[in-house]
């Protein structure tokens, strides 16, 4: 059985990004659209993030992940937006032909007027680490453990060490502790944590869990199940220092060592991928270099705040609607590049001659105190944002005002400047 359909807009992924994009496009009058979601329910990764702290920017209150997701699901339902769950997208071509498969509908091929990619990100797996040791069970990514505990009601272990001090790892340190496990340590390769201070205090310090900065796991022990690990201090070159080994008896090691945008489909569509963000290169409209294919949310670049994901995705939805209507003509662009101390500015291109506000988002390469992010065009300063602190753990946003954007006459660079 194979069905061939035509849609004005196909949205790949029903997480917060896909939902926001669909809502925006619908509000602009696009009715012949569909959201395709692999899981049994929409909501994306937020379904397993049962802790609170979501939505402060967008709703002015602190919600849990499921509550945040539900607001968009409710809105989508109210509008009548079709969300087709249990459906995996297998391929998106450059010509915007989307192939997907589901048990109910079988194989479907959809010719789409526009496509929005919103597949989210995945965690770096164990293989990407190169930690020496046996292939025993008991080593999970923190997100996998989060899914077990929060969605499936199953505790993956009793004595736990966490490698990586990103927010997901910190959240899981507390979660496992509250469920009765003993979390022995959180081990971080870098001399600083990329997690929020709030999470360091409320997830580690509250439960007396030690944080070992500039340390890493150097050995994994156990035949069938993990029985222990060895942790060593690392030098400034991030290599283990001999003689600094510590041993922990544990049955579980959780890895929280970074997120990677999930871009197999994007590559398949011949979209240019940025080596810095690992996501598509986009214009200010969030259109990729393949006409009519847009990207937003964690598949574009890894966000720490879902509020920013929603904001970005609304813009993608509006732009895709304009494309479908023929109101988004191909335009010449200026290039936006990373200057000193800056990594992964999005968008990478701004259309020439528009007068709309553009938000530049990036991560500082290191911690900068009392610093400015400076935006320059042809060597001339066009915007500056000062802050007491910039950290790699927090995405920085510098808005360019509409009149500044209208005046762009050459390539743009964003760089950090200390002292202001």
């Amino acid at each position, binding site marked *: 059985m194979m069905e061939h359909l035509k849609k004005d807009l196909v949205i790949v992924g029903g997480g917060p990004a896909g939902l926001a994009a669909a809502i925006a496009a619908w509000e602009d009058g696009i009715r012949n659209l569909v959201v395709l979601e692999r899981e049994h329910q929409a909501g994306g990764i937020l379904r397993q993030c049962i802790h609170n702290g979501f939505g402060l920017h967008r709703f002015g209150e602190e919600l849990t992940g499921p509550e945040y997701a539900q607001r968009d699901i409710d809105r989508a339902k109210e509008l009548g937006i079709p969300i087709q769950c249990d459906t995996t997208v297998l391929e998106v071509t450059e010509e915007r032909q989307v192939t997907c498969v589901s048990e109910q509908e079988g194989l479907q091929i959809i010719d789409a007027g526009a496509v929005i990619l919103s597949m989210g990100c995945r965690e770096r797996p164990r293989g990407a680490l190169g930690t020496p040791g046996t292939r025993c069970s008991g080593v999970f990514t923190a997100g996998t453990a989060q899914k077990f*505990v*929060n969605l499936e*009601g199953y505790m993956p272990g009793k004595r736990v060490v966490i490698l990586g001090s990103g927010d997901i790892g910190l959240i899981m340190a507390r979660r496992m502790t509250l469920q009765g496990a003993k979390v022995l340590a959180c081990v971080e390769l870098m001399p600083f944590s990329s997690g*929020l*201070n709030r999470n*360091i*205090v*409320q997830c580690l310090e*509250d439960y007396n869990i030690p944080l070992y900065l500039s340390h890493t796991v150097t050995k994994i022990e156990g035949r069938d199940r993990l029985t222990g690990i060895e942790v060593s201090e690392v030098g400034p070159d991030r290599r283990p220092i001999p003689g600094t080994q510590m041993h922990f008896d544990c049955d579980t090691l959780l890895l929280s060592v970074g997120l990677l945008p999930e871009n197999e489909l994007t590559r398949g569509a011949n979209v240019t991928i940025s080596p810095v963000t690992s996501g598509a290169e986009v214009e200010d409209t969030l259109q990729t270099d393949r006409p009519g294919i847009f990207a937003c949310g964690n598949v574009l670049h890894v966000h720490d705040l879902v509020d920013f994901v929603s904001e970005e995705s609304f813009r993608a939805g509006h732009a895709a609607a304009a494309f479908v209507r023929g109101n988004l003509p191909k335009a010449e662009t200026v290039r936006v590049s990373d200057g000193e101390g800056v990594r992964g500015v999005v968008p990478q291109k701004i259309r020439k001659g528009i007068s709309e506000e553009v938000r530049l988002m990036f991560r500082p390469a290191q911690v900068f105190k009392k610093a400015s992010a400076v935006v320059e065009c042809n060597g001339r300063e066009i915007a500056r944002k000062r802050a007491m602190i910039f950290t790699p753990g*927090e995405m920085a946003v510098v808005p360019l005002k509409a009149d500044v954007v209208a005046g762009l006459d050459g390539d743009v660079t964003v760089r950090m400047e200390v002292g202001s």
Partner: protein
Amino acid sequence: MLEERIITCINCPMGCRMNVQLEDGAVKSVTGNTCKRGETYAHQECTMPVRMVTAVVAVKDSPMPLSVKTRTPIPKAKIFECMKELSRVTVSRPVHEKDVVLENVCGTGVDVIATRNLL
């Protein structure tokens, strides 16, 4: 009794390390904060620390649990007792977001409510 505590302000990425001087449990002085928010936080944290608790509870006839939260933060010292009370709760379908799952948890006056629908 004099006491000294070192705490980290959580209100912004600066993460100021603050030195708090306490006398018989009352805050005498706060140093190390960069702005007023740090001082307010130090007072709160050293006299009446509170936390939101989020967790899951069992669902009758299903292995998949239901996510819940305290409606407002509860005293930090009550977190484990709260978890213990929640481990004894089993809910039956249907449950709607915001439905009360457990009233007045540990005598705090705070209810525990569902954070998703279970239909």
